[in-house]
């Protein structure tokens, strides 16, 4: 029943969800803001792939790097232009700003490109599969796992070994005290948005890679997944986001495998029922984190 392909697919999905959740929680940790525009960063990267592909740019690696760079840049710009001016205002103001940025980016694409989905060029490697122990395993899934693990490792090193990472972790626990030690507030928040944008860009490559197309609402599903994964793992730590992402991906894969055909349409309902059960026993999520609910100001 658990073929190697299934196991790798489940881990691949979990890895992708872990990265998605991590991108959301990096900003949440510091601003205490669930950034609703996060999904749109994935969309922007997807459209960058489409636009460059349509312009005939090649090889694909250039498209991929540019798409990730664009999501990173747009994330930084949203912080600079939209979030920074309202940072010290009320939580409502910052939340409305987040909705506004999300709507603005989505409508911008609707206006400039099209409301219809567009095919996106994918690397040849994504379509290939390799035979491992008698099972055909998709290269896209292997790549998702390898790149996700490499990203998680690099991020873990950044957070533990560099002063920038230590400052980011400290800011998530006590923003005012971090500033009182000389860490510039603007720098910490900008870095959080840059990292979040970078992760959104990488996610976009694999997310779009699953469907092969992009549309203005493509960011909604990953945003919801990120949010639920963070709730499962706990909003208060980076580890929680990663754990939540993997659990979400693995449970989702198991539901896809075990649910009878007639109930597959209700997969999300089953998924959320499991999430509710987890929350009944662990209301703060599975991983206890060190972040405190302090808003920056």
């Amino acid at each position: 029943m658990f073929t190697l392909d299934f196991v790798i697919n489940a881990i691949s999905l979990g890895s992708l969800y872990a990265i998605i959740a991590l991108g959301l929680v990096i900003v949440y940790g510091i601003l205490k803001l669930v950034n609703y525009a996060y999904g749109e960063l994935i969309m922007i990267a997807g459209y960058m792939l489409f636009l460059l592909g349509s312009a005939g740019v090649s090889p694909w690696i250039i498209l991929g790097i540019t798409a990730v760079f664009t999501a990173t840049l747009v994330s930084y710009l949203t912080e600079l232009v939209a979030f920074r001016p309202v940072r010290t205002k009320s939580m409502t103001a910052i939340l409305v700003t987040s909705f506004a940025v999300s709507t603005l980016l989505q409508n911008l694409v609707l206006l400039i490109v099209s409301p219809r989905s567009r095919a996106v060029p994918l690397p040849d490697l994504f379509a290939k599969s390799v035979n491992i122990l008698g099972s055909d395993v998709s290269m896209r899934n292997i790549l998702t796992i390898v790149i996700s693990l490499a990203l998680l490792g690099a991020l873990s090193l950044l957070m533990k070994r560099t002063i920038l990472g230590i400052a980011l972790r400290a800011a998530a626990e006590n923003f005012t005290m971090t500033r009182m030690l000389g860490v510039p507030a603007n720098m910490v928040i900008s870095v959080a948005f840059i990292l979040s944008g970078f992760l959104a860009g990488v996610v976009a490559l694999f997310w779009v890679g699953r469907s092969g197309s992009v549309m203005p609402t493509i960011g909604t599903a990953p945003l919801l997944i990120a949010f639920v994964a963070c709730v499962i793992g706990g909003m208060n730590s980076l580890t929680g986001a990663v754990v939540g992402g993997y659990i979400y991906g693995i449970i989702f894969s198991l539901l896809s495998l075990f649910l009878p055909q007639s109930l597959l349409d209700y997969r999300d309902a089953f998924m959320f029922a499991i999430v509710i059960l987890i929350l009944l026993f662990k209301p703060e999520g599975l991983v206890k984190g060190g972040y405190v609910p302090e808003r920056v100001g």
Partner: protein
Amino acid sequence: MLVLNKIHARYGAITALRGISLKVEEGELVALIGVNGAGKSTTLSTIAGVLKPVQGEIQFQGQSLVGKSPEQIIRLGIAMVPEGRDIFPSLTVEENLRLGAYTRNNRTEYKQDLDEMFELFPILGKRMNQPGGTLSGGEQQQLAIARALMSHPKLLMLDEPSLGLAPALVDQIFELVVNLHNRGVTILLVEQNVERTLDIADRAYLMRTGKIEDEGTPQHLRERVDIEGVYLGDHTPDKA
């Protein structure tokens, strides 16, 4: 070194400081005493840039601090150990100290400073790789002070360093403050433990409802102020 001139500060609609004027000279240990809510911690927060004054002037070594952010103020040489210590619980002792040295950014000096801190606070050396949150209250206080010292401050502000500690640890903390003072560190100390504070301070200011009510040497304050009343909140100046 530090001069506050008629500082007014507010928390929303509540006026917390009403024209505070005080000064700290280089090498001094100056204490702020008074009941809870007198504005002692608010004064420190205002100097540190956490709270913006609505009126008045703060000068540090001839430079105005008004309008400067906390991260700019520590770079001028003012470090603060806040009430409640505010160490980072999930960061290790070493990571807490590394952040304390953020403004200095010198790897070689950092190692030397770290060794010096572990000499001054041996327990921190033993707990170097432990998360700050797992330390006892007294150890956390030592960590908070060591973290502030890592920036080589010209002025160290300590807010209620003995609060919530067992009597034996309170002794240790006061010994430490005296030790730092003897090493030439300029200190502005806020403490509830008035008797002990007046024992070690060079000068002190008595605060009440956001104002400076009296100032002078510890002996002067002891003579003029009902110290017991400071605890109870009904102290009266000019008791003599």
